């Protein structure tokens, strides 16, 4: 099975509002790397929400890890969610937990043992350049540092699918590159990566597949850019 996610005629609207996304048809294969671009308000985060199962399509079919998303029983969802790492656009760090605890959260939830957690988290925090902020709470971190904590939390569990929503909006180009190398590293180990971003430069430099959300539908512009 190489199809991680596939969409068929998917449409989404929030409550009684207009259809934000419509007629989405695409497939994410195992080990693929895509950039998702589009104007502000185009629906990138909405598409991400569909993928991390926080939102249901109003029409169409979504298949994720081989299962029809609306047919998955409630108690099987957590297991699927643990295979998905998400960098939220608004970080969603827990304010009263330290950097370490915030990053450790997915491992704690998965019941990984303490020693393992300690080793993995410290190592990863060193890599993203937060080795000296391990015990700081989010309010003591700079914007870019918070964003890196959010990224570390998303990748700590070596997810099968990584969704990053504007992961480099608050860091400089050097760190952005470093973070993308991290994503590529994961990708080489088999993780399917989808990154929503406004940073055209970055997209151009890494030259992976590029999708454009426009007027609610998805266009593959990998070769046209």
């Amino acid at each position, binding site marked *: 099975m190489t199809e991680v996610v596939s969409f068929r005629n998917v449409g989404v609207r929030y409550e009684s509002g207009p259809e934000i996304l419509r007629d989405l048809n695409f497939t994410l294969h195992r080990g693929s790397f895509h950039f998702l671009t589009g104007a502000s308000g185009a629906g990138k985060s909405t598409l991400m929400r569909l993928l991390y199962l*926080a939102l249901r399509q109003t029409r169409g079919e979504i298949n994720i890890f081989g299962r029809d998303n609306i047919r998955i029983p409630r*108690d099987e969802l957590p297991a699927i969610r*643990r295979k998905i790492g998400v960098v939220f656009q608004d970080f*969603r760090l827990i304010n009263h937990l330290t950097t370490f605890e915030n990053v450790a*959260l997915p491992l*704690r939830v998965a019941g990984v043992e303490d020693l393992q957690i300690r080793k993995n988290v410290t190592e990863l925090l060193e890599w993203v350049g937060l080795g000296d902020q391990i015990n700081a709470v989010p309010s003591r971190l700079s914007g870019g540092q918070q964003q890196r904590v959010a990224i570390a*939390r998303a990748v700590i569990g070596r997810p099968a699918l990584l969704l990053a929503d504007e992961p480099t909006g608050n860091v400089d180009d050097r760190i952005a590159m470093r973070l993308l190398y991290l994503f590529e590293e994961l990708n080489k180990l088999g993780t399917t990566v989808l990154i929503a971003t406004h940073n055209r430069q970055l997209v151009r430099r890494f030259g992976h597949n590029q999708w454009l959300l426009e007027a609610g539908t998805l266009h593959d512009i990998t070769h046209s850019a």
Partner: protein
Amino acid sequence: MAFRSQPSHLPLDSDSSTRFLPSIVALMVALLTFSIVGLAALHDSVGKWSGQIEGSLSIQVPPTGMADREPEEREQALQATVDDIIEQLADMPGISRIEELSPETMSALLEPWLGPDEIVSELPIPRIIEITPETGFNFDMLERRLGEIAPEAVLDDHRIWIERIADVAFSVELALMALIVVLFGATMLSVVFATRSGLSIHRTIIELLHLIGAQDSYIAGQFARHNLRLAFFGALIGLLIALPVSGVIAWLGMRAGWPIPTLVFSPLFIGIIIAIPFVVAGVAQMTAKRTVLRVLRRML
């Protein structure tokens, strides 16, 4: 680097909202304890009074307007009235026993008044009917019916007075009991409120945990345990405030002549007091669990 000793528990402690639940719980538990101690003390007093007013109520049937009759005739007329009263009142609700006082008891009763003399049997002495009332007894109705049967008969209201006051005291006791029930309910409600409002602050954390793949039961369990601890802690503080204060009040009260409460030292009472923190903690835990589960169920 400080690592937590329990890796599977989320460190929710350092959160700023955690001060509220314990304080409101402490307050309510203190109030509840005050009321329970008060009830116990009052119950003791009422118990003492009841012991003292146990027994009966009496009707005196005086030989009014019979002083000029012959002793024989007088006694017969009096006996007729007495029999009449006993017969007619016997079926009244709330009367468990009705019976004439024997002449010997009468003499004994009158002795301190008139001396231990023969004179008694020759005097126009009133007859006395003793009634043992029970619950459902209605003093006013007895008085009314007695007025119809024998207007000259006098109801001794000495004991009935005590009875009435004990009744009112019992009502107060009931009211206090009701207050305790209300306070208990209020404590539970405020635990529920405080727990829920605490959780509303944590909504984003609940959501995040959900999205990173935590089981509903895991999330609910974490918060339940957290709130259990907070509520237990609050209840303990409430007890620690209320018990010494109750003690001081009781001491002052006993100095002012209140009866010494014995119920307060009974195992039941001590059991109830000890149970409070556990019940409160249990309610907080259950509320947290349910609230979190409800929040989670609304999410995908």
